[in-house]
């Protein structure tokens, strides 16, 4: 079965530090990958997505992710974090088996940025 793994469950950073959150997937063929963010008290929001083409994708608020097919990875990066990006981050993927865009999520990474 397809799976998505996030190995960092809790991350604490100081403001201005660089961020990299790991995500690995198990799909064997064509895959679409996503990062969603859930700010405290808010709903899941799309941060960025990879469908095809340039493996380096840019999202909102200065986030980017790189799709590395050989490593089955889709890590999220941000060069310098601010307190305002404290949130829970979810990696998700779909391979359209079953005829639809069912998403499989990782368990999430709780990011806390300290002032």
């Amino acid at each position, binding site marked *: 079965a397809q799976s998505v793994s996030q190995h960092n469950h809790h991350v604490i950073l100081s403001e201005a530090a660089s961020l990299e959150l790991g995500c690995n997937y198990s799909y064997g063929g064509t895959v679409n990958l996503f990062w969603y963010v859930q700010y405290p008290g808010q*709903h899941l929001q*799309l941060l960025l997505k990879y469908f095809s083409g340039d493996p380096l994708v840019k999202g909102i608020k200065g986030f980017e992710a790189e799709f590395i097919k050989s490593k089955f990875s889709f890590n999220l990066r941000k060069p310098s974090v601010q307190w305002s990006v404290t949130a829970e981050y979810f990696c998700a993927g779909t391979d359209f088996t079953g005829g*639809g*865009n*069912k*998403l*499989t999520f990782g368990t*999430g990474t709780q990011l806390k940025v300290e002032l």
Partner: protein
Amino acid sequence: DAGVTQSPTHLIKTRGQQVTLRCSPKSGHDTVSWYQQALGQGPQFIFQYYEEEERQRGNFPDRFSGHQFPNYSSELNVNALLLGDSALYLCASSLNRWETQYFGPGTRLLVL
């Protein structure tokens, strides 16, 4: 343009009862998916509806059922509630069954 809306926002039920949750997709979206998010976990796929039929289903028992209406809105029904059904239930919609899913705020269900 309104996003995905869900009702109610919170709900408290007792074991054995039945519950119905509702979802209205974003304007122009015809596909609705439902997810269950337990505390500290990522969302788990329950099922997906388009053209008023269930098209994909996750590993959830038959106690979980749904419906999609001609206006693309959807309901999730859970029968014979168990304590373990306590979770945040998320609805997501997409332009079609291939495009990006956008999530609503969720309904938090507590089963006592």
